[in-house]
């Protein structure tokens, strides 16, 4: 299963990912309530020690900025071998061999195992991150804007690589991005996040051909279309809200063209509009649309 989380930066999706991994910086952040079920286990209830076994072993992560996500004073080989040693019974030599294998897998000559991160380009570093993430054949891979910092042609290479490896390793993927194009290329299901809430969730087809939430619609409309000419781009009015000062009621109502009095108060519950498609918008609850 592949799921894409879409939303403007600050919409809260990277924090969700860190929450799953139990990596929310504390202080200032703390997960207040809720549960994260992974293979039937609630990760939030799991003691730190067990959580460590899951991290990097069963669930691993790729971060947005490959430039800063690798330790500058360790060779890439050491950094891949580290995760292998942590989650398997391999010896150091075996781990090193595995590290070289992983490098080859992501398209880097294994001989570069003893090089340091600063000797690689951005795209290569992201490949190394992927090698680290996949080294223990995890069941779930969380990728947080994995290609945002890369050039288009390099992005295409990395996405292709991720897609192939995912198939090969049978890994589920949660992809967090603001790029609707990347989602369309790689995901099966999509959750659109706004101000910390999933406001629309469904299959790729649901979201791309039958979008319902005004924010989702606005998001698609504000993209310049490569195939059609439009004189003026449609815009979502206003700004992304400050996460520490969210509006009451529907979080989107100050920017929503359809906002009514009822949107300003109370919690908006999600509405299931088809078997696979969920929307969190007051207009669907009242059966207006």
């Amino acid at each position, binding site marked *: 299963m592949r799921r894409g989380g879409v939303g403007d930066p600050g919409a809260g999706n990277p924090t969700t990912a860190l929450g799953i991994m139990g990596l929310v910086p504390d202080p200032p952040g703390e997960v207040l309530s809720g549960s994260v079920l992974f293979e039937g286990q609630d990760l939030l209830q799991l003691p730190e020690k067990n959580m460590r076994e899951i991290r990097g072993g069963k669930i691993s992560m790729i971060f947005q900025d490959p430039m800063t996500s690798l330790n500058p*004073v360790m060779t890439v080989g050491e950094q891949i071998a580290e995760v292998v040693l942590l989650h398997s019974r391999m010896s150091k030599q075996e781990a090193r061999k595995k590290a070289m294998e992983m490098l080859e897998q992501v398209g880097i000559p294994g001989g570069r195992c003893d090089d340091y991160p600063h000797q690689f380009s951005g795209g290569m570093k992201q490949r190394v991150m992927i090698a680290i993430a996949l080294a223990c054949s995890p069941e779930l891979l969380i990728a947080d804007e994995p290609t945002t910092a890369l050039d288009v042609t390099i992005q295409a290479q990395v996405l292709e690589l991720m897609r192939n490896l995912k198939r090969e390793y049978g890994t589920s993927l949660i992809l967090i991005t603001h790029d609707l194009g990347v989602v369309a290329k790689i995901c099966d299901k999509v959750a659109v996040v706004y101000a910390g809430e999933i406001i629309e969730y469904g299959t790729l087809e649901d979201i791309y051909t039958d979008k319902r939430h005004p924010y989702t619609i606005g998001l698609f409309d504000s993209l310049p279309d490569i195939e059609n000419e439009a004189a003026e781009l449609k815009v979502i009015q206003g700004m992304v809200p400050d996460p520490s000062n969210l509006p009451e009621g529907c979080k989107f109502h100050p920017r929503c063209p359809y906002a009514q009095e009822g949107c300003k108060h109370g919690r908006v519950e999600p509405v299931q509009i088809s078997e696979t498609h969920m929307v969190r918008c007051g207009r669907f609850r009242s059966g207006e649309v």
Partner: protein
Amino acid sequence: MLKYIIKRLLWIIPVLIGVTVIVFTILYFSPGDPAYLALGDNATPEAVEAYRVEMGINGTYWERLGRTLLGLLKGDLGISYRSRTPVLDELIVRFKVTFNISAWSIILGILLGIFFGIISALKQNTVWDSLATGCALFGISMPMFWQGLMLILIFSVWLGWLPASGYGDSWKQMVMPVIALGVNSSATIMRTTRSSMLEVMRQDYIRTAKAKGQSYWMVVLRHALRNAMIPIVTVIGLQLGVLLAGSIVTEAIFSVAGVGKYLVDSLNARDYAAVQGCVLLIAFVSAILNLIVDVIYTYIDPRMKTMYESAKVFHLPKKGAKSSV
């Protein structure tokens, strides 16, 4: 790498020449004539001239400067006006003392500084942190000479545990000078360690290490500490110079016959050859120590190695030369 070290060693030569010129010039224009100081005000002009020739301080500024530099190239630091013995011999004896004390001090400083720095950073905003940072602030605010006197007051005058002065008769004589010098450095090293650790712990690669499932202490030791060491090593390098200068004060307080005390006495006696020798020795030792620190750098930070191998020797690596592209 070897090429880089050789280049740096060669660079020490012009530095020493430059330092000689600076110190020589400053001292040349100092008031007080060493010849009259040595022979008394009533000395005959002939005796003064003879003394000057003997000490090599006759002639014009340029002649004397030339002679000093030539001597330097031959490894001759001149003759002490007071004792009429070669300055170099005097210095070698005394340098051993100073080196001994300084070495113990920096070891003390590094151990205390790094240990408390790490504790303080990891326990940020706790009582331990406030306590450690508070102590460090006191440490850097205490004048070293006062600290030395307070040690004497407490440990010799009141408690009578340690001798107040001297060197070489017992290890007890070393304790207070080492503490006086070391505590000061440890305060500076502690502050740097703390801020560097805090900075490093915020980095993305620490998050990566945690995401691998690495335990907290392994993340700290394997990933954070080595990165945090980069600025710490710089500060330790700077502290070595500070320490050599600090020995001037401590040696004066504890009556240790080291380079520092020799320098102060020589300055007071207008024994300029000896002063010049001391300054040169200290500059030379600092340069060598800095080189060692820079070499250690490349082991900690592989980026530096790449830079050294391609960079021109005069480029100061620590400042991170920014290209204009």
